């Protein structure tokens, strides 16, 4: 099964293609503020490089975020219109899971991190290796990176952009080994995780596919706080 994976959550346009467990392409295109401008051309470039026409793709994986709010809207919209256009199944893949996946052999606990953009706050997920993939332990975490320390109960690998800096801010229990792997979201990882679900006959509804923001917009936060205060 050939799966195309895209992720635009991290100020890069990641485009990958996998065939089962074989990676056919795993490209990262720089996209500081122009992920929208480049993404469709980037997909076309990667397809042409592998010599695969779009019709050979059996399914699509889309990185849902968290990350850049604008970025994930672009990726999710492109993903849903790709499958709406050529009627193939789609799977949304949380970007934290896609980050954890390539690091699954590094440690019994994988901590993927994505910067929130305020101080040392991160979106994070803790994963353990399971079968061909990874399994999330507990809920997603949003907050200062050091607040995660208490949850590190096994040797851990921190994965993400600036993983080394975040790893230095963690204070795990004495004796826990702590590694860091600098990584950006990978299109191939998104494709591989989508492929696992697609192989089971599982997919998401394209039209309702939505980004994983993990955080309300500021306006909604204020309104909710106001409502609470008013009882």
């Amino acid at each position, binding site marked *: 099964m050939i799966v195309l994976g895209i992720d635009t959550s991290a100020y890069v346009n990641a485009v990958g293609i996998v065939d089962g467990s074989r990676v056919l392409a795993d490209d990262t295109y720089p996209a500081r503020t*122009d992920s*929208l*401008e*480049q*993404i*469709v*051309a980037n*997909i*076309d470039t990667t397809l042409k490089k592998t010599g695969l026409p*779009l019709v050979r793709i059996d399914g699509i994986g889309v990185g849902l975020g968290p990350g850049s*709010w*604008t970025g994930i*809207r*672009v990726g*999710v*919209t*492109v993903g*849903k*219109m*790709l499958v*709406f*256009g*050529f009627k193939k199944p789609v799977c949304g893949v949380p970007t934290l899971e896609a980050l954890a996946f390539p690091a699954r052999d590094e440690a019994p606990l994988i901590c993927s991190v994505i910067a929130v953009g305020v101080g040392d706050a991160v979106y994070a997920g803790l994963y353990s290796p399971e079968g061909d993939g990874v399994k999330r332990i507990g809920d997603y975490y949003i907050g200062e990176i050091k607040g995660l320390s208490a949850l590190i109960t096994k040797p851990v690998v921190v994965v993400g952009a600036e993983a080394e800096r975040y790893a230095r801010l963690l204070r795990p229990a004495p004796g826990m080994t702590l590694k860091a792997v600098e990584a950006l979201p990978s299109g191939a990882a998104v494709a591989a995780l989508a492929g696992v679900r697609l192989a089971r006959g599982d997919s998401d509804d*394209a*039209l*309702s*596919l*939505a*980004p994983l*923001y993990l955080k309300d*917009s*500021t*306006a*909604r936060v204020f*309104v909710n706080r106001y409502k609470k205060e008013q009882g």
Partner: protein
Amino acid sequence: MLVLGIETSCDETAAALVADGKTILSSAISTQLDLLKKYGGVVPEIAARRHTELIGYVIKEALDTAGMTLDDVEAVAVTSRPGLVGCLMVGVAAAKTISYVKNLPLIGVHHIEGHIFANLLSHPALPFPHVCLTVSGGHNMLLYVPEPCKYEVLGATLDDAAGEAFDKVAKFLGLDFPGGPVIDKLSRQGNPKAFKFPRPMIGTKSFDFSFSGLKTAVVNMFKDPLARGETLPLADIAASFQEAVVDVLVAKTMRAAAEKDVAAISVTGGVSANSRLRQVFAAASKNRGIEVFFPELSLCTDNAAMIAAAGYARMMLGERSDLRLNVFPNAPLGLP
């Protein structure tokens, strides 16, 4: 040529199918009115999130209503400028992906050019040259239009658009959002001569507008009584304020029509739905050999049929966008 139009520049998620720039086969619009009422206006991040949730459904609705599939579509037109960047991006991402998957020509459309074409959808016989007044909550321009897709900007607002002034005055008076339809309705029970509000720049030579001072005049006259908890004569205030806006819009447009010696005026944009504006234009143009055209009400506010129509006209001129089409929060009218 069957064109799929997509519009997400502000708070409306819209898609439409239009044949040959003339016949509307479907026009699906999902308004975010519930959110606007809750937040008292458009919150860009919240609007962009809603567009992302709705865009697929709205495009499917447009296709289903017309009894078509994407295989029937021959070109894609999308609002790419001006507007809220995060909102525009959703429509453009959808449009360019469809264009890529289905190998269809793509055209980025200027939102205000869309509004101008709304009137050509309603009145295919609208003569050229004409003078066009296009007014909404986000824009306010007076144009000379010698032929389709050619514009000479005669004037524009220096501060608030007329629709924005409606919204802000409505908000000040504690009325619902959006202010335009609310004030229009309330004014029918009020006396437009009850209060004397300024008609900003009505006598100046320039065709520019300014509505910020008028809004402030309303606020200044009533902020103290409002703070004291007095009951305000809302209908009279609304009618008097509306009359001031309408007087300025009509006076400047009629003068532009005389100066440019045209026999037709086209009024478009959300504010063109205002019933008093339509009345006063009708009265002012009577016996002067000038015909005033308004779009049907469903085409006054943001919709994607007008984007498809404008995109079609641009494509007939040989214009195309490529897959790197981007969005622009501000953009001059008339450039491809």
